[in-house]
């Protein structure tokens, strides 16, 4: 214990020294004075000390601590409790817009859109095990297909929605072909490049996509020809996204338990064994890319309709990173996990605004914390627990003789 405290003190002193120029010295260029904020130093030292000691304690007792947070599945295994929870959730989600401001509804809509994006990416990353860092490209394809089809041909939202999904799926196959033979790091690099290529095309091909200035005046979704006020439209879009989310959850769950879903999981687990079982690797990979991308395409159409404006700046690598983080933090392969991940990931930074400048810092700390204590994600997929590797097990058996 004494050693821990000493360690904490050492880290605190080191931090105080390192941050001295930022936290303590403040130069006021107008009055040409230097303000020494020594109180900051004390606060920082105390905070770092406490965090270090607590952090080290937690990481030493990591296994006991994560036992406090059981995987939700045994809890949800109670069918009645599960049904009750689902009904409460459905009611909350349905009634939400009636009690909250347009601002809150907008945030929630964004969170739900990311939930759908996460579920789509989860097909590629969580189920098929293909690390895709360029997922935002399909989102962009969806958004621009609505924007451009509307601009040139006056196509409405409801016509654009399936077209956006389909076009994104086609782009998924286009990406899938060249990366058929790649895995892991190489796949990640190529998909990253693909995402950037799509963004750069949108940025630079002025005749086609109107460059960085983007396309404005995209109509909101229609409701039987009614004209809605802005507030009503926000509410309407919320319900549309909610509906899309429910459909996504249903379809993705069905897909996972289907033949092709099994093939994806087999591909993720062992590519050679998967082929030896007679699973067509090409088809399996391409369907994962295509079906994963189609959700991003549809959300893209919704995004364009929601903001009524698209430009390439909305489709940077950061978006891919956020969606991937949602999948990983929420729990790869788990539907509930991805949805919760999206809600946490999008809502938390909004509600952390109370902490003003430190909000991103706090957010980062929370992310690191989740990964340290819940490496399997918020809702860990119980299938993805660690276990001795097959070859290690074989060695043990020999050792027993």
């Amino acid at each position, binding site marked *: 214990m004494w050693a821990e405290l000493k360690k904490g003190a050492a880290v605190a002193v080191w931090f105080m020294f390192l941050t001295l120029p930022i936290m303590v010295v403040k130069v006021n260029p107008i009055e040409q004075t230097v303000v020494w904020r020594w109180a900051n130093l004390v606060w920082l030292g105390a905070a770092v000390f406490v965090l270090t000691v607590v952090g080290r304690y937690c990481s030493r007792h990591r296994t006991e601590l994560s036992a406090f947070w059981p995987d939700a599945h045994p809890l949800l295994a109670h069918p009645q409790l599960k049904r009750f929870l689902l009904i409460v959730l459905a009611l909350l989600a349905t009634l939400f817009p009636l009690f909250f401001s347009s601002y809150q509804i907008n945030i929630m809509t964004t969170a739900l859109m990311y939930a759908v994006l996460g579920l789509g990416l989860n097909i590629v990353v969580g189920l098929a095990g293909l690390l895709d860092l360029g997922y935002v490209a399909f989102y962009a394809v969806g958004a621009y297909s609505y924007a451009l089809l509307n601009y040139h041909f006056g196509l409405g939202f409801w016509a654009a929605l399936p077209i956006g999904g389909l076009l994104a799926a086609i782009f998924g196959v286009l990406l899938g072909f060249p990366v058929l033979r790649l895995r892991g790091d190489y796949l990640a690099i190529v998909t990253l490049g693909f995402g950037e290529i799509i963004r750069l095309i949108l940025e630079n091909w002025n005749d086609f996509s109107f460059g960085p200035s983007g396309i404005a005046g995209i109509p909101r979704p229609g409701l039987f020809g009614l004209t809605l006020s802005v507030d009503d439209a926000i509410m309407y879009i919320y319900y549309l996204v909610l509906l899309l989310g429910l459909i996504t959850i249903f379809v993705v769950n069905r897909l996972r338990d289907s033949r092709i879903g099994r093939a994806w*999981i087999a591909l993720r687990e062992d590519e050679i064994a998967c082929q030896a079982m007679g699973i067509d690797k090409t088809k399996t990979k391409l369907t994962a890319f295509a079906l994963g991308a189609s959700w991003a395409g549809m959300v893209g159409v919704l995004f364009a309709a929601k903001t009524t404006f698209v430009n390439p700046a909305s489709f940077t690598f950061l978006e891919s990173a956020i969606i991937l983080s949602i999948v990983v933090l929420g729990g790869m392969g788990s539907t509930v996990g991805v949805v919760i991940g999206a809600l946490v990931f999008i809502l938390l930074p909004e509600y952390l605004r109370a902490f003003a400048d430190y909000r991103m810092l706090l957010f980062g700390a929370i992310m690191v914390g989740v990964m340290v204590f819940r490496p399997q994600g918020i809702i860990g997929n119980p299938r993805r627990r660690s*276990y001795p590797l097959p*070859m290690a097990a074989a060695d043990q058996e020999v050792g027993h003789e």
Partner: protein
Amino acid sequence: MLKMRGVEVSYGKICALHGVDLEIRSGEIVTLIGANGAGKSTLLMAISGLARPIQGCIEFLGEEIQALPPNRIVERGISQVPEGRRIFPQLTVRENLELGAFCRHDPQGVRDDLAYVFSLFPILASRSQQLGGTLSGGEQQMLAISRALMARPSLLLLDEPSLGLAPIVIRQIFSIIQKINQEHKTTVFLVEQNANLALKVASRGYVLENGRVTMTDSADNLLRHEGVRQAYLGV
């Protein structure tokens, strides 16, 4: 049943098989023995379509299969138990077995075969909900064999099923291999480094050295052959 003529496989510049000729007749247990790196696994991969021969032809039931994709080859009745078992570690025993039957479309037949492999390896039945990765090495090998059987193959390829297992488990597995061969008339092509056991269950054997078949004879003759005894039986 299976004929290989002048099959050559290379990985980039490394030539792993230099013109292999080999024949397996229906109903036999044939073994292929050879040292580490002789090209045994490569030969099985070539049959399964996972390694493309650059020359030669592989004929199965009178039709050339060397250009077919792996899934078509499984559909035609060749299934492989790969080296190192390659169980799907995060899937349950049952799901592993169901994946073995991936290319079949007769649910009733699949159910029958599931019952059959559970009768061959009762331990798998009691572990059916356990994750594949948590099985012991011997159980994983049993699962790998069962998974391959779920495709209802007419030719079963086994790549070093004794690798890393205790002698008692090896004997159990080999007796099951013989049983499968007798009961189901499944032809077995057994690749082994454990030449002694392999030659005892097989009727014929091939010796592979540096990517070439250097010897082929009946299993009994190979067991008695001086060169084979020295090189592979350690006597």
